[in-house]
C-alpha cells in the first residue's frame, strides 16, 4: 500500500517534463472524445434511416441522412487527426525532455552511484525505457479516455434507446471485462516465466560463444548442444502452454458478444411486439453492442502497453531520484600556494555497500615533482588511493589535501583541472585522434599535441597513420591496438599540462622497453608534474621517490625501493616473485 503510494508520487514527479505540453495533453484527448461522440451518433442515424426513411419510403430523407453520416465521418477524421498530432507532439516532446533530464542527471552522478547502478543499466534507461514511456504516453493521450468513453457512451445511448433492452448490456459488459482481464491476469505472470526461459536459452548461447575454445578443448560440443536443446524444449513447451490459454481470449469474447446479441434480439423482439421499440432501434442496439466489443479489446491491449510503460517510467524516476553523494562546497576555496603537493591524512574509505574498508588509515605526503609508486595485490586498494585525489570518491575518514586545500573545499572542476588521470581501462571516443587529445585541454596548439604524443611514446605510430592527427578513431577505439590506445590516453592526460599526473596501471599493454622509455620521458617532462604510478611490476616503480606498498587496504610500507627491500616483507615477496633467480643470474 505504502509502496504503491510512493510509486504514485514518483510518477507524478515525471509529469514536470510534460508541463511544456500541457495544452497538447489536454486538447489531444478532448479531440479524441469529440471524434468518439460523432462515432456514437452513427448507429442512431442509421436507425432513423430504417425507421423513418425506409418506413416512409422517403428517398430524400435517406440520402440526407447518409450525407449526414459522411459529414460526421469528415468531422471525425479532422478531430482525430488533430488529436493524433497533439498526442504525438506531447509524447515526443515529453520523451525528449525526459532524455535530456536523464542525461544531465546521469552526468552529475558521482562514481559511487555509477558503480552501484552500472553504465549498461543507465543506457537502457535512456534508450529503450524512454521509448516505451513515449509509446505509453502517446497511447494514453489517444486512447485512455476514448475507450471507456465509447463503452460508457454506447451504454448510455443504448439506455436512451430502450432502457429495459439495454439491461442486457449491463449484464454482459462486466462478464466480458471479467473474461478479458481474467485471461490477462492469468497470462501476465506466466509470460514472465516464458521470459525467464528465454533468458536461460540466451545464457547458454552466450556461454557457448564466449567459451567456444574451452568447449572444444574438452570436446563437449555434443553435450552443450544437448543442454541447449533441453532448455529450448522447455521454453517451447512453456510457450505452447501459455499460448493455449491466451488464445482463448478471442473465441470467448466472440461467444459472449454473440450470445448477448442473440439475447438482445429476443428481448428486442418482445419489446417490439409490445410496441415499445421499433425495428430500427433493434438494429441500433446491435450496432452499439459491436462497438463496445471493439473498444473492450482495444482497452485490454492498452492496459498491457500502459503497464509496461509505467514500469519503465518507474525505473526512470528511480534514476532521477538517485542523488549524487558528492556534495559541492557552498563557497569553494581557491587553489593553495604549494602547486603539485598531495597529502593524505589518516585516510580511510569504505565503498558504499561494502562491508569492509578498502583503505585504512593511510597517511603520506607527496611533494611537487615527486614520483610516487603504488604497488600491491589485486583488491589491495591501489586504484582507490589515486581515485581519491581527483575526488572521484569521498573519504569516509581523514582528509586528502591537494595544493594544501582539502579536496572537498574545491570546485570539482577546478580540482580536476589540475589533474591528468589515465585509468586502467583505455577509453577513447568516436572522432579523430586530434579530437580525443583535445579532451585534455581544448585550446591546446598543434605543437603541444605532438609534444604530448612524443612523451607518451605515441608520436611514431600516429605519424605512420595516413590521416595523422585527423585519423579517425572508431567507437571504443576498436581500430587501434591495446598499446596504441593506452599511449593515446596518456598523451591526452599530458595535453592538459597537469600539476598531478595519475597513471593507474596504464602501461600494462606496453612492452618493457617502451614502458621504460615512457617513464623516462615523463620524468624529464617540462613542468615536472607530481606523478602517481600504480603498477604490478616492481621494476616500473624502482626509481620512484616513494613507494607505497598496500596489502588489503593498509599501507604496509612506505619508502624507497632499497628501504623497502630491507624493511617490508610484502614488498620483498612481490619483488622476489618477479625477479626470482634474476638476482642470482646477475650475480653470476
Amino acid at each position, binding site marked *: 500500500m505504502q509502496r504503491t503510494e510512493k510509486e504514485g508520487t514518483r510518477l507524478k514527479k515525471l509529469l514536470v517534463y510534460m508541463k511544456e505540453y500541457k495544452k497538447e495533453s489536454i486538447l489531444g484527448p478532448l479531440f479524441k472524445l469529440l471524434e468518439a461522440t460523432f462515432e456514437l451518433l452513427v448507429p442512431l442515424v442509421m436507425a432513423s434511416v430504417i425507421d423513418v426513411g425506409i418506413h416512409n419510403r422517403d428517398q430524400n430523407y435517406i440520402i440526407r441522412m447518409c450525407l449526414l453520416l459522411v459529414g460526421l465521418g469528415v468531422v471525425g477524421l479532422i478531430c482525430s487527426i488533430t488529436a493524433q498530432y497533439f498526442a504525438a507532439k506531447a509524447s515526443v516532446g515529453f520523451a525528449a525532455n525526459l532524455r535530456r533530464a536523464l542525461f544531465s542527471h546521469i552526468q552529475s552522478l558521482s562514481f559511487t552511484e555509477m558503480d552501484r547502478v552500472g553504465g549498461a543499466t543507465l*543506457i537502457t534507461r535512456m534508450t529503450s525505457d524512454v521509448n516505451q514511456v513515449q509509446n505509453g504516453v502517446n497511447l494514453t493521450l489517444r486512447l485512455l479516455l476514448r475507450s471507456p468513453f465509447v463503452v460508457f457512451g454506447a451504454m448510455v445511448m443504448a439506455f436512451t434507446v430502450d432502457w429495459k433492452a439495454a439491461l442486457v448490456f449491463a449484464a454482459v459488459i462486466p462478464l466480458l471485462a471479467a473474461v478479458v482481464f481474467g485471461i490477462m491476469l492469468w497470462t501476465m505472470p506466466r509470460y514472465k516465466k516464458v521470459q525467464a526461459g528465454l533468458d536461460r536459452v540466451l545464457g547458454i548461447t552466450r556461454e557457448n560463444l564466449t567459451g567456444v575454445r574451452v568447449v572444444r578443448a574438452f570436446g563437449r560440443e555434443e553435450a552443450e548442444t544437448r543442454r541447449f536443446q533441453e532448455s529450448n524444449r522447455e521454453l517451447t513447451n512453456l510457450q505452447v502452454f501459455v499460448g493455449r490459454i491466451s488464445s482463448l481470449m478471442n473465441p470467448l469474447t466472440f461467444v459472449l458478444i454473440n450470445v448477448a446479441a442473440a439475447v438482445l434480439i429476443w428481448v428486442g423482439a418482445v419489446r417490439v411486439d409490445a410496441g415499445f421499440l421499433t425495428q430500427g432501434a433493434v438494429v441500433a442496439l446491435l450496432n452499439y453492442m459491436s462497438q463496445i466489443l471493439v473498444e473492450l479489446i482495444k482497452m485490454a491491449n492498452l492496459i498491457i502497453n500502459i503497464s509496461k510503460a509505467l514500469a519503465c517510467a518507474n525505473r526512470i524516476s528511480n534514476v532521477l531520484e538517485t542523488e549524487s553523494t558528492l556534495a559541492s562546497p557552498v563557497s569553494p576555496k581557491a587553489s593553495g600556494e604549494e602547486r603539485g603537493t598531495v597529502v593524505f591524512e589518516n585516510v580511510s574509505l569504505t565503498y558504499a555497500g561494502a562491508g569492509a574498508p578498502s583503505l585504512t588509515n593511510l597517511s603520506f605526503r607527496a611533494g611537487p615533482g615527486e614520483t610516487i609508486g603504488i604497488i600491491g595485490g589485486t583488491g589491495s586498494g591501489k586504484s582507490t588511493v589515486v581515485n581519491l585525489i581527483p575526488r572521484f570518491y569521498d573519504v569516509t575518514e581523514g582528509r586528502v589535501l591537494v595544493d594544501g586545500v582539502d579536496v572537498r573545499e574545491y570546485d570539482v572542476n577546478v580540482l580536476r583541472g589540475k589533474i591528468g588521470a589515465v585509468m586502467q581501462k583505455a577509453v577513447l571516443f568516436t572522432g579523430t585522434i586530434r579530437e580525443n587529445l583535445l579532451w585534455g585541454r581544448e585550446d591546446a596548439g598543434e605543437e603541444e599535441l605532438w609534444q604530448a604524443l612524443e612523451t607518451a611514446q605515441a608520436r611514431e605510430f600516429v605519424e605512420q597513420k595516413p590521416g595523422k592527427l585527423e585519423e579517425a578513431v572508431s567507437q571504443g577505439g576498436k581500430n587501434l591496438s591495446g598499446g596504441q590506445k593506452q599511449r593515446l590516453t596518456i598523451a591526452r592526460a599530458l595535453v592538459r599540462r597537469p600539476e598531478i599526473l595519475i597513471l593507474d596501471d596504464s602501461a600494462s599493454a606496453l612492452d618493457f622497453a617502451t614502458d621504460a622509455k615512457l617513464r623516462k620521458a615523463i620524468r624529464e617532462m617540462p613542468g615536472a608534474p607530481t606523478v602517481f604510478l600504480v603498477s604490478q611490476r616492481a621494476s616500473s616503480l624502482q626509481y620512484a621517490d616513494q613507494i607505497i606498498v598496500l596489502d588489503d587496504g593498509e599501507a604496509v610500507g612506505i619508502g624507497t625501493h632499497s628501504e623497502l627491500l630491507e624493511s617490508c616483507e610484502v614488498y620483498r615477496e612481490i619483488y622476489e616473485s618477479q625477479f626470482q633467480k634474476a638476482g642470482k643470474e646477475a650475480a653470476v
Partner: protein
Amino acid sequence: MKGKEVQKGTLKKVLRRIRSYWMFLALSVLLAAVTVAATLYIPILTGRAVDLVIGRGEVDFSGIFRILLQIGVFIGIAALSQWGMNLSNNRVAYRVVRDIRNEAMEKIQILPLRYLDAHPSGDLVSRVIADVDQFADGLLMGFTQLFTGVITILGTLLFMLHEDVTITVVVVLITPVSLLVAAFIAKRTYAMFRKQSQVRGEQTGFIEEMVGNQKVVQAFGHEEKSMQQFEEINERLRKCSLRAIFFSSITNPSTRFVNSLVYTGVGIVGALSVVSGGITVGTLSCFLSYANQYTKPFNEISGVVTELQNALACASRVFELIEEEPQQPDAQDARVLEEADGSVNIEQVGFSYVKSRKLIENFTLKVAPGQRVALVGPTGCGKTTVINLLMRFYDVDSGAISVSGTDIRRLTRKSLRRNYGMVLQDTWLKRGTIRENIAYGRPEASLEEVVEAAKAAHAHSFIKRLPEGYDTVISEDGGNISQGQKQLLCIARVMLCLPPMLILDEATSSIDTRTEQRIQKAFQKMMQGRTSFIVAHRLSTIMDADVILVMRDGHIIEQGTHRELLERGGFYSELYNSQFVQT
C-alpha cells in the same frame, strides 16, 4: 530488386522448415475456413431474425427462437474452430522456432573459430535469440491473421454476392480507396521511420560512449560539452520522431474514415433498395455488419505484410548464421589419437588471419616428449595464434603440425584436443556449480576425484570456505569468486583429466601475489613429465624452458634457449635486460 530476391529465398527456407508440420498447417487452414464461414453466417441469421421483428404485434416468436438456436450452434462452431486454429498455429510457430534455434546451435558448434572470432558474440546471440523471437511473433501473427483475413475477404464477398449484387459492387468499389490511403501513408512514413531509427542509433551510440565512460568524462570535466552535443542530437530526434509518429498515426483515422464511407455507401444503396423492395431490413443490417467486417482484414493484412517482412528480415539473419560454411569436417579416415606420446613436430608452418598480412612464416620446431616451450613477448603479440594452431582451432596455411608423428589434420579434432590440457587467462566457467565446472571434461567423475583435482590445483581450501562448498553456483559473470580463484578452478578442471600435453597461460597483472604463487605451484605439478606450451611472464618459467619462442607483432622473431637468445643480443635480450636485470 535484390532485396526482393533475398526475401524470396528466405521465404523458401522458412517454408522448408514448416513443411514437416504440414498436417497442422492444413488443419489450421481448414479451421480458419470453418471459423470464417460460421462467423459470416451469423450476421445473415441475425438479419433474418431482425426481419421477423416487424412491429407491434407482428413478431414471429417461434421463427426467431429457431433462428436463435441456429445462431447458438454457429457461435459454438466458430469459437471452437477458432481456438483450435490458434492452438495449431501456436504449435507450428513455436516448433519451427525451436527447430531453427537448435539448428543454429548445432551450427555454432561446428563453425570455424575464424568466423566466431570475427563476429562479436553479442551479435550472434541476438541473432539466435532476439531475431528468432521477432520471427516467431511475425510468423504467428502471419498465420492467424493472414489466413483468416484472406478467407474472410473471400467469404464475405461470396456471402454478399449471394445476398445482393448491387450493394456488393458498392463495397468492392469503395474498399480499395482505403488500401490506397494506407499504402500512400505507409510509403511516406517508411522514409521518416528510417530517418528516426538512424538518428536514434546515433543518439544511442553517443549515450553508450558518454554514459559508459562517464568516469573519463568527469575526469576531464567534459560534462558540459557532451551535454551540448547531446542536446543537438536530442532535438533532431525529437523533430524526426514527431514527423514519423504523427504521419504514421494518420493511417488509422484515415482508413477508419474510408470504412465509414463504405458503411454509408452500403446504407444509402441498401436503404434505397429496401424502399424499392429489393431487399429486406434484415439483409440491410446484415450488410452493414459485413461492411464493417470486410474492410477490417484489409487494414490488418497491410499490417501483417510489414510484420512478415520484418520477420523475414530477422529470419534471414539467422539463416545467414545457419548457412555459414562450417569448419572442414574431420577427414574420412581420420585417426583417433588415443594417448599422445607428447612429441610435437612443427614443420615449415605458415599462417595468417588475413591473406594480405603474413604472420607466421616458415616456422619449424621439434618438441620432444616432456619438453617445455615458453612463448614470450609483449601483450597482443600473437601468442594465442600459436595456441590456435596447436589446438587446431585454426588450420595452418602451409606446412604441417604433427602430434605423435601424425599430421593433426589426419586426426579427429576431438581426440587431438582431448590430449591437450588448456588453461587460458580468459577464465571461462559455465554457469553451474563448482563441482560441475571442475568435472567439465569428465562429467562422470566422482566427488572424491573432483576434490582430489581441486586439492592438486590448490583450489580446495578456498572452495571449502564457500558457503555451499562444491555446490556453490557460479553466477553468469562469475562475480562471486575472484579472478585468481577462477583460474584455480580452470586448473582443477584440467587436473581432473590431466592429458599428456599442456597449454598454459601464466597470470599477469590481475592476480595477487599469493594466489599467483599457488597457481605457479599447481602449474609446476601439472607440467611434470608433460609436453607443455606456456605463455610465460615469469623469468623462472622462461629460464626453465627448453625452447623459448619470442614473438612480436604476430611474428615469431627469435627461437632458442635462454642462453642462446641472450648471446644473440636481439629483442629477447633487450626485453630481458629492461625487465629483469638490475642496473
